[in-house]
């Protein structure tokens, strides 16, 4: 008898015992696993649930968008050196190569008691395990007037890559030479800590070549640059002198769309030509709506050993929606890593195996400072069983010493590989 056959028989016997004692739990092969959200976290979770179960787990991925568009690198589209098509991948391989059922729809509600989700199309699906990876919600009403200004097409956020990313570039391209592009940053935590500073570089790079009398204003609610600070400041001084102005502790409270005026908690009003105001952020809408956001009502606390929500059993939450551990960034790379820990834990749990007691997460984040040169930050986080959290390993990780074109090549290498790892 081969081992697989042997295990199958034993599992059947065990299943029978479990059924007999009234403690039935769905086995790996029978469990309905729903993955909500097909970004870096959800797509990776769906694929690795299949890989780690030797393609035996039943996995359904629910994602409203027809294609995957990468947020990482989308600042290059804002700056005009790349286009959105270069950042777009298909979901086809997840279904064709990995046997994942893909439903193009959005989840409107979840019932953790009945273990069901309701889709916008009206369908209701049952789950034994749900993996929720809905990214972030932009809290538009955290800045007065922002919602209306966005609807009027005057202020764009472009913090989820897609049509707004292109529209923001078009605003930049239409701006007069001598104009001001203002980007505002909410207090951390928010999606992609170095993202706004990278965007400032990309906008400045465009202005340097096309509208050199213009400037970029960074209005940061934080005390200082939240990621790669010394590196970014050096780049601003050396590559974009007079082009980028950095203003820390500038907390935006309101915007007047008609006059393009930005209002602050403390400082005087500022007018700009292009307004890219990033509001405060929270866990994705479905996570908040389902009552999972039990950290200040904004982020989801999880058990880091398996990424299960502390609010609801059998709902595992990944990526930008979670209340992060110390020094854990909200990044696409990290979401992919969360997904692998969660997928392995779910497969182990449904197989009645011990969950890996010592998972590891690594993070790599590249930022383009112009169209070719890149800086990085990297870290490794080992699970600490005593404190039940991930902690960065002392002496590991770090930053680039300076921007380089070699890291520019690696950044594209990273992109092609992580897209293939998550979706291919």
């Amino acid at each position, binding site marked *: 008898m081969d081992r697989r056959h042997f*295990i199958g028989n034993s599992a059947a016997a065990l299943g029978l015992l479990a059924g*007999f004692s009234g403690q039935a739990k769905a086995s790996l092969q029978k469990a309905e696993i729903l993955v909500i959200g097909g970004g870096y976290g959800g797509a990776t979770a769906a694929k690795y649930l299949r890989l780690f179960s030797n393609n035996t787990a039943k996995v359904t991925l629910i994602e409203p968008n027809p294609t995957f568009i990468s947020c990482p690198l989308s600042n290059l589209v804002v700056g005009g050196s790349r286009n959105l098509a270069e950042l777009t991948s298909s979901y086809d391989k997840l279904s064709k190569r990995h046997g994942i059922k893909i439903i193009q729809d959005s989840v409107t509600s979840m019932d953790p008691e009945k273990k069901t989700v309701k889709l916008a199309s009206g369908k209701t699906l049952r789950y034994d395990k749900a993996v929720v990876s809905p990214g972030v919600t932009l809290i538009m009403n955290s800045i007065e007037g922002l919602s209306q200004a966005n609807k009027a097409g005057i202020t764009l956020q472009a913090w989820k890559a897609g049509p707004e990313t292109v529209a923001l570039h078009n605003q930049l391209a239409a701006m007069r030479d001598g104009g001001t592009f203002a980007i505002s940053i909410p207090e951390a935590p928010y999606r992609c800590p170095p993202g706004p500073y990278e965007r400032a570089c990309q906008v400045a790079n465009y202005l340097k070549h096309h509208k050199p009398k213009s400037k970029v204003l960074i209005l940061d609610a934080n005390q200082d640059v939240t990621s790669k600070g010394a590196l970014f400041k050096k780049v601003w001084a050396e590559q974009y002198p007079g082009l980028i102005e950095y203003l820390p502790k500038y907390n935006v409270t309101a915007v007047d769309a008609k006059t393009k005026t930005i209002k602050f908690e403390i400082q005087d009003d500022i007018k700009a030509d292009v307004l890219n105001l990033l509001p405060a952020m929270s866990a994705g809408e479905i996570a908040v709506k389902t009552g999972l956001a039990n950290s200040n009502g904004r982020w989801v606390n999880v058990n880091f050993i398996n990424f299960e929500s502390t609010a609801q059993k059998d709902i595992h939450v990944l990526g930008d929606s979670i209340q992060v551990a110390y020094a854990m960034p909200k990044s696409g790379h990290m979401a992919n890593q969360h997904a692998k820990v969660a997928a392995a834990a779910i497969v182990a749990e449904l197989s009645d195996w011990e969950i890996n007691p010592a998972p590891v997460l690594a993070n790599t984040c590249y930022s383009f400072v112009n169209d070719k040169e890149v800086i990085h930050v990297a870290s490794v986080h080992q699970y600490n069983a005593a404190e039940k959290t991930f902690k960065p390993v002392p002496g590991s990780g770090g930053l680039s010493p300076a921007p380089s074109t070699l890291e520019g090549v690696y950044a594209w290498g990273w992109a092609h590989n992580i897209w293939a790892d998550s979706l291919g």
Partner: protein
Amino acid sequence: MRVKHLKPAILLSLCIGIGQWSISALAQNADANNLYKSSLAATCANCHGTDGKGVVDGGMPLINNLTSEQMLTQLKAFKSGAREGTIMPQLAKGYTDEQLETIANQLGKKQ
């Protein structure tokens, strides 16, 4: 329903189930161990491809032409600082020697 239908087989299954339990637990541990090793190696996949099979001409150095032994030597050189690099010296320092060995065994070319 399923339990009811299978009732006549319960006693037999119980005997088989219990008789096979110790062996089955071992087999399960072997599978659980494989899962552990795969999931650890998967922390490298973001940059170096699923199962170490990176995108050819994608811009990132390929690692799947290395044997497990060669890979471990490189990983340890990154960790000790003997080999320079951009990100790898920083990442290798975050893994234990045992974890690096497991990764090299998982992703390296078998001879």
